[in-house]
């Protein structure tokens, strides 16, 4: 009796992942520029002995909660990639929904954080840079949530299988970079002030 061999793995270029990697690199450069300006202006301001953020303007807790939320989302995103790779559709749905919820929670917490900080955007260069950097990051998270939502729709349509897992891997690259950028925001803006 002839042995039936499993089908050969699909050998096709992972164009979506490559494209996402390029776009994500561009996003990193965008934030790299904003951070460079932030540090440059902050350094000049401190050198003149002037105050950067007003005392107690930025509480640590909301920023830390955001970091915790996004850290958990890294795990759920990895879970989604693993589940799709193994054709585990139920767990893939669950992981993608959880990741999206983490993103929505992060946006919600950031809005709360803005209200808690309470500085008007034209208070100082520090306030302006704070809102531009965190606002741009918020937009990035929003795009990630929308992308995850579209992914879920595709998943419900049965398109995210182990043979078509590029889209999940691509969104994971984007999501990890979003978290990576937030680490800098958390460390250098919210904690380092």
């Amino acid at each position, binding site marked *: 009796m002839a042995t039936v061999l499993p089908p050969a793995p699909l050998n096709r270029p992972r164009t979506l992942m490559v*494209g996402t990697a*390029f776009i994500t690199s561009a996003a990193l450069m965008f934030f790299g520029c904003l951070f460079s300006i932030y540090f440059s202006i902050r350094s000049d301001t401190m050198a003149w002995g002037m105050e950067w953020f007003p005392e107690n303007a930025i509480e640590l807790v909301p920023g830390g909660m955001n970091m915790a939320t996004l850290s958990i989302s890294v795990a759920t995103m990895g879970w989604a990639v693993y589940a799709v790779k193994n054709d585990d559709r139920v767990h893939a749905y669950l992981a993608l929904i959880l990741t999206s919820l983490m993103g929505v929670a992060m946006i919600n917490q950031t809005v709360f954080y803005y209200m808690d900080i309470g500085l008007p955007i034209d208070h*100082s260069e520090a306030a302006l840079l704070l809102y531009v950097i965190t*606002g741009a990051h918020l937009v990035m998270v929003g795009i990630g949530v929308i992308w995850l939502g579209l992914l879920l729709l595709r998943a419900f349509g049965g398109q995210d299988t182990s043979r078509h897992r590029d889209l999940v891997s691509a969104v994971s690259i984007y999501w990890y970079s979003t978290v990576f950028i937030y680490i800098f925001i958390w460390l250098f803006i919210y904690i380092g002030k």
Partner: protein
Amino acid sequence: MKNESTVVERIVTTTESGTLSRYWMVSALVGLLFSSVAGLLVSLERIDLSSASIFSTADDVFQFWTAHRVALVLIAVLPLMVGLATAIVPRQVGASRLVFPKMSAFSFWVWLFGALIIITGFLANGGVGTPEATSETQSVALTLVGVLLTIIGLCGASTSVLTTIVAGRVSGISLLNIPAFSWSVLVAGTMWLATLPVLAANTVLVYVDMRGRAPVNFGGEAVVWEQLSWAFTHPQVYLWVLPLLGIVAEIVSAAFKNKMSNPLLFTAIGLTGFAGFGAYAQTYFDIGTPVFEESFSIIQAFIAIPAVLLVVAFISPKIKDVKGFDKQTTIPTVLATLSIVLLLHGVVVGAVHVIGPLELATKSTVSAQIVLTLGAGVLAGMAAFSWWGELLIGKSISQRKILISGLIFHFGVGIFAVADFLVGFTGQNDFTGVSEFAAGTDNSSWVETLNIISFIGSLLILLGVIAAIATSVQNALSKTPASGNPWGADTLEWESKEKEEVA
């Protein structure tokens, strides 16, 4: 089944790389025309430095002066390069099409919308601000939105082309064996994606600070240009025209029937890409210490190293094989050679203008360097059209008319650059305003003569652009079919053309 889509629907919804390429290039020519007219008016104003001649205030001059540069980069040279890459790269790497055709189409329309907004913003007394802050704030904000949209469009189109090279090329071709043009696009596109978002970040910061309230710092109309100007000057301009090295290498290689040394050439292109990275050179955030300024100049002068490598890569295989020159390729070879000559002059002027004791960093020499480098890019675009034109439009093209346009443009750039380079030594500022004090020099006969020569150069540049547009229109209307591979070149894009014809 009958296809019921209208002409407009077909134009707007096309994802075919050849058609998109033509859209990019036609739009780039229009952008080049806008930029050249703005440059000509500024040159005319500079003839008499002591007073306003055709503009009423220094701020008016400033708007056209900045419009010339912004349009030259974002609406002319970059889309020209992207357009060429969109059509040629997929064919060269054996891909049947761009890997993200819909994104490419979307990117073009976003870019076009942005380009129109930029032009509108400049014409509505906006632009990128003015020194005396007499521009309309709303129009400046509008222009900034246009800049952002063009950046998004250019990044999207670049991503599609880059992904086609990296993940969409036919199996069996390593990255080190792709044609020189595709390699140059790979390096340039990667570096564009590293620098255009930086410009976007600057623009967003300015925009947010400008809207709705008194600016804190960044959104002041008098300082907008200072924050964005790094993208339109040395060394960043080398990066915008980087694919010209690939264009020239392809043409010269085929003309001499001699493949160049890929490692040397690819290294030179790669180094030029790195040396051309100018996002760090943001003088607005310069802390101003002598050490910083010294290192800044030294880093900028390093652009000369890849240029020397490049010359070696181009010349070394040619000397012994000069008898192998194919006379049929004379016109594209002449245009390609002239473009590399302009670029090398730009490199030399760029290296000279950062020498501290000469104090040329803010003088007219800057303008000479920019026009030489970006002019080299435009001329390379003409050489590329001469070389790949039949592939691009599917018709036979008039080589002689392209040569005439290219020569007029080349002499225009040369004359303009020589005059601006020399007048820089008299102390004439890059932006001259409408008084001798603002110009940084007196209106002596020597200065006036050089400025008249510079104006003649601008005029020739404009004539060259108009001739190129007329030639393009005539070629587009031509009914003579393309002749296949007119040069006997051995790169893959010509093969795919033949396959298409068979199909």
